């Protein structure tokens, strides 16, 4: 038997060495396949700018930019959490109901007392962790598919909301509402800073912590991860807790914005499906394992820009839906083509 030096044996070898250098760069600089997302975002901004200008409006005004930043916060925060579970190969359809519930509980716990603000936030965060834990346990221990598990959780939370609240729940303190909901530093709204902070934290978690590595691993293949000795259940539960926490933060933010909690703010906001759309628009694969929060932020901005253009052009809600649907499908189709070419 001849021993072969593998370094000279195949064409693939040389190619691999070259690819490795590229890979190093890619891993280092652009950890996620986010580049096309931002390409699309820039394209849409340019298009929007042209269309709005032709229509006789102004697009890149301060007011408009503030409006877009502000409008991206709620969807943005929850989409960050959704990114984590989708990367994991799961998804969460209960976020909308949880957003409503946390806005209500926030308002209820604050009860108009400034001293209650911090305890209220802690209570609501604990509640979010509990819901995430429940989702995770249902998925891992009861082995219910995430789609059904979180759909069921959405029903459960919906029932709790209906049973517990008959309408908006007041009680958010003036100061809290002002601080988080309305303060602005120049063009940057305070809430946008919250979004940015959450984004950085989750980006860091995914990129640099064990938990983040494991999320990608489990998303790549749960079986392989498990057989490799990874405690997959813990990772799945952890990711669902993170996702629920972002939903809860969104709920707290919306409570500050509305100065009240409402039973409908989550579902009417469509945060369940829209957050998934934003994540996929951001180039994260629904099958898990590929993508990241940077792309998601791009996806959220795309939706925010669209929203803003719709307002400027006074589209009615039906035209908006049609355009949104087309943009979502078209963008993802373009990513898919790129992916195919690369492969």
């Amino acid at each position: 038997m001849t021993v072969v030096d593998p370094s000279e044996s195949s064409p693939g070898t040389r190619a691999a060495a070259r690819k490795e250098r590229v890979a190093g760069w890619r891993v280092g600089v652009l950890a996620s396949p986010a580049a096309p997302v931002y390409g699309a975002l820039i394209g849409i901004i340019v298009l929007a700018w042209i269309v709005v200008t032709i229509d006789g409006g102004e697009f890149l005004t301060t007011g408009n930019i503030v409006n877009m930043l502000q409008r991206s916060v709620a969807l943005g925060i929850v989409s960050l959490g959704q990114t984590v579970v989708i990367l994991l190969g799961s998804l969460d359809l209960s976020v909308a109901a949880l957003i409503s519930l946390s806005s209500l509980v926030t308002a209820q716990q604050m009860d108009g007392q400034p001293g209650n603000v911090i305890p209220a936030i802690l209570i609501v965060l604990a509640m979010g962790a509990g819901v995430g834990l429940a989702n995770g346990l249902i998925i891992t221990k009861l082995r219910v598919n995430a789609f059904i598990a979180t759909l069921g959780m959405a029903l459960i939370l919906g029932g709790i909301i209906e049973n517990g609240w008959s309408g908006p729940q007041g009680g958010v303190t003036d100061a809290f509402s002002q601080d988080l909901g309305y303060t602005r530093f120049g063009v940057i709204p305070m809430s946008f800073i919250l979004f940015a902070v959450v984004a950085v934290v989750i980006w860091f978690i995914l990129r640099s912590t064990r938990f983040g590595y494991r999320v990608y691993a489990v998303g790549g293949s749960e079986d392989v991860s498990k057989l490799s000795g990874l405690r997959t259940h813990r990772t799945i539960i952890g990711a669902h807790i993170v996702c629920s926490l972002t939903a809860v933060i969104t709920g707290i933010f919306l409570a500050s914005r509305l100065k009240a909690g409402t039973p409908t703010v989550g579902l009417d906001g469509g945060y369940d499906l829209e957050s998934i759309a934003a994540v996929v628009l951001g180039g994260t694969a629904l099958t898990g394992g590929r993508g990241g929060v940077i792309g998601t932020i791009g996806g959220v901005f795309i939706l925010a820009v669209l929203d803003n253009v719709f307002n400027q052009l006074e589209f009615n809600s039906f035209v908006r839906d049609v355009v949104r649907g087309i943009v979502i499908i078209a963008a993802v189709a373009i990513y898919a083509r790129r992916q195919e070419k690369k492969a």
Partner: protein
Amino acid sequence: MSTENVAASGFGADEQDRGRRFLSALASTGTIFILLLILWVWITILNPTFAEPGPFLAYLKRSAPLVILAAGAYFVLVSGNFDLSVGSLVTVMVVVAARLIEGEPSRTWPVILLLLVIGAVVGFANGFISTILRVPSFITTLGMLLILNGAVFWWTGGAPRGALSDNFRSIGRQGIEGIPWIEQLPWSVLLMFAIGAASVLLMRADFGRQLIATGDNERAARLSGVRVDRVRILAFVLSGVLAAVAGILLGGFGGVSAQVGKGLEFDAITACVLGGVVLGGGRGSVVAAMAGALTLEALFTWLNLQGISGALEDTVQGVIIIGAVGFAAYRLRGAR
């Protein structure tokens, strides 16, 4: 080849296979039938009239649209995709029918034909985008949901217009009258059984086997000669056409409404999963999926009779769905 050493001991004649296949299918998906039976019995205890032919047929009649949708959802799910657009497609059917028929009975049949074509075209678009253009079907059909909802109301100016004719409505509302004992056999129940039987035959036929193999392992199916894209597109077309049928029945049953289809896509998928269909493809039986839909409808009835406060109804429903799916998963695991 030596035939003395036949290891294939369990292989009987092909005729026996049929029976075996049926039994093994029943065993692996049995949970849903047990659950369905329990619910029927329980409902009958709460309300004895339920077991009488009239009321029971009324229950079947009201379940028919969801059962048909579940069959459609099954084809798509088992091939490894999602169809979230069926709910809005149902709405489109009713709104388009009302606007085009405007109460004229003579327009009914052409319009029904048109509706089926619309269903097929939408299904084809879903399938084409999801396969040839490689957009994940979750996103394709989510986008389609938005497009359909927007487009139909854009066309009608926000609210349904026109009216459905009586003969259009009779499909979902009436049936064959004067049958002894059961009085009326609703068309929708007949249609439901016909579609059920056709679906079973389809899944047993080459198409069905190729479809489920595609959902199980696309690469293997392709390398065996299966035209996986075509098979999947067909599944979407079936889903679209069945959504059209469900829309026709629902329009007939309930009349014109802007939101007949709301949330039906989730109900249909839930029904399938209750019936043991595995999201991601490759596993599950169409009969069980349809039984899942009957179970879901029975569950709604049960919740009603149980007098659970309207507010907590959703909560109970969520718990039961999770519980049932969890139990089925446990049984499957235990049985492995």
